[in-house]
């Protein structure tokens, strides 16, 4: 088991009280698994990704534990996480194209980063060059400034930097969202390539685009308003989802070849609740067509079939 998260709860501190952005999240990721993490904006997917690696104020650790390869990750202590970052767990940040220092040549910037980790740049360089070949970047980019690269190239450059120390877990936060379809495909395929080449053991791919996850992920976890809704293999989530939110989300996606004249798709009425004062029980209750009395209690995240977890009373009432 590569990653094991138990009851992780993280709030944002604000003047008006705590925003309950992540509530009792428990899940596991297997060795070599690429897990997609999907949901609407504000559902807590980025909060989850960040709290695993850089839990900084205004984020506030409330409870829960994180284990990586059997070792406890001290996510609540910023300083103690330093030795884990990049070495064991690494992130490709959102808007990675803006993550490069504009006034340093890329090679120089990497050198500084590696030295900050107290490592020898020359020892790492052969591997760095091999990785550049892997993502199909010319080696000359090391002598270029970020402005000379296109968005897709910068994205790939950041991917190389994030994985250069072979982390056990890589978090890719919305890496494909700002790219054109052609670059999107190339970057997504490279993520899989990174896993296949053992640049990283397992991966969390955070995105709002489920069709991308269908292409690359082994499993998909759906979040709603800070709670987990469903986790299962990619095939199961797409073809036979059980949580009403997942069902509605999947059916609202326009696919190529679908026209409104033939098949009118429906959205999900309503909007996500404010997490400053979230509703008691299942947070999807207000928008859920199936909601009943029981939903005033928080539904447990239960395994209904092998590797298929759902948090919905309609599905789990008999089991619980």
């Amino acid at each position, binding site marked *: 088991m590569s990653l094991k998260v138990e009851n992780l709860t993280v709030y944002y501190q604000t003047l008006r009280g705590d925003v309950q952005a992540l509530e009792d999240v428990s899940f596991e990721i297997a060795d070599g698994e690429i897990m997609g993490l999907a949901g609407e904006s504000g559902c807590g997917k980025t909060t989850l990704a960040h709290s695993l690696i850089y839990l900084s104020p205004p984020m506030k650790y409330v409870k829960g534990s994180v284990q990586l390869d059997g070792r406890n990750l001290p996510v609540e202590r910023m300083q103690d996480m330093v030795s884990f970052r990049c070495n064991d767990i690494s992130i490709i940040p959102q808007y990675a194209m803006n993550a490069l220092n504009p006034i340093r040549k890329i090679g120089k910037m990497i050198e500084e980063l590696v030295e900050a980790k107290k490592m020898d740049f020359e020892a790492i360089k052969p591997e760095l060059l091999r990785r550049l070949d892997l993502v199909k970047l010319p080696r000359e980019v090391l002598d270029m400034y970020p402005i000379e690269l296109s968005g897709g190239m910068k994205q790939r450059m950041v991917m190389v930097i994030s994985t250069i120390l072979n982390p056990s877990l890589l978090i890719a936060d919305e890496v494909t969202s700002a790219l054109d379809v052609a670059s999107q495909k190339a970057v997504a395929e490279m993520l899989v390539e990174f896993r296949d080449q053992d640049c990283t053991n397992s991966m969390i791919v955070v995105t709002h685009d489920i069709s991308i996850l269908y292409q690359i992920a082994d499993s998909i976890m759906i979040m709603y308003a800070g709670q987990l809704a469903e986790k299962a293999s990619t095939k199961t989530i797409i073809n036979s989802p059980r949580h009403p939110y997942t069902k509605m989300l999947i059916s609202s*996606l326009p696919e190529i070849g679908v026209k409104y004249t033939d098949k009118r798709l*429906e959205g999900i009425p309503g909007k996500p609740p404010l997490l400053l004062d979230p509703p008691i029980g299942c947070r999807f209750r207000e928008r859920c067509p199936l909601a009943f009395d029981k939903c005033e209690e928080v539904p447990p995240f239960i395994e209904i079939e092998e590797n298929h977890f759902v948090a919905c009373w309609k599905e789990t009432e008999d089991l619980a």
Partner: protein
Amino acid sequence: MLKLDKVTKTYRIGTFGSKELHAVSDVSFDIKDGEVVSLIGESGSGKTTIGKMVLHLTPISSGTILLDETDVSALKEDEEKEYYRTVQGVFQDPFSSYNPIFKADRIFEIIHDIFYPDVDEEAWKEKVHKALKDVGLNPEHVLDKFPHQLSGGQLQRFLIARALLLDIKFLVADEIISMLDASTRIDVLNLLAELKKKGLSILFITHDLSLANYISERAVILYRGCIAEMGTTEKIFNSPRHPYTQMLIASVPRLDQKWDKAVTIEENSDPIGYEDGCVYYGRCPLAYEKCRERPVPVEIDTDHFVACWKVTDPHT
């Protein structure tokens, strides 16, 4: 309705404007009454520039844009107001379309003050309520709120309601749903489809092919400011002929089939040979000698135009 004829936009770049950048070159297409036409392209393909020229927000370097009988490039300042009664735009980021200091309904007040100063408060309020209902919002819930109290989808529908207050005939929708969540974006799309039924023509600018396919009858594929392919949506999506369109469609992530590994050809950071030749020359797997000349869109089938020598002139 709208007719673009050899529209070109050139920017001067470099020191003292010594170089020219063709953001849009020789683009011609038309949009009929009550039709939705998608303008599809990657970033930098000139799709937003075309939208801005239609909205008279940026001048046209050469060529003409005709809306019914009005020549957009020749609009005088005092004619602009009349033009905007019939043509309006909605843009990508709903959050930056509002002034966060004022309540969101201020956008309606501005329309009231400028275009309908004679309408009294009561009648105007009714008109606003009707427009909000038309876009599927409950006026009770959304009026008298600040922009941050509304969701992206609501703000975007507000902007469409604002455009509807003006009895417009033409809407430029520039990436209006790319910032919205999957659960709300489909509602905005369906709204556009409703408006279309009522006779509104829409220029739907997007980079997302599945959305374009869902909403539009015709599509125009742009690459580096030139039309690569255009025609009815069925023809473009089911039998694309231009190598760029074929590559684009194969790269769209789908839920019913996995990607074919081989087909992606990425943006070349240093494209060569496109100054006078085909703009796709640097990336095209089929490029040959003839492609040093710029291809023009040729009608290969009823309402299906392709700008590619391999397709239109296969014998050379």
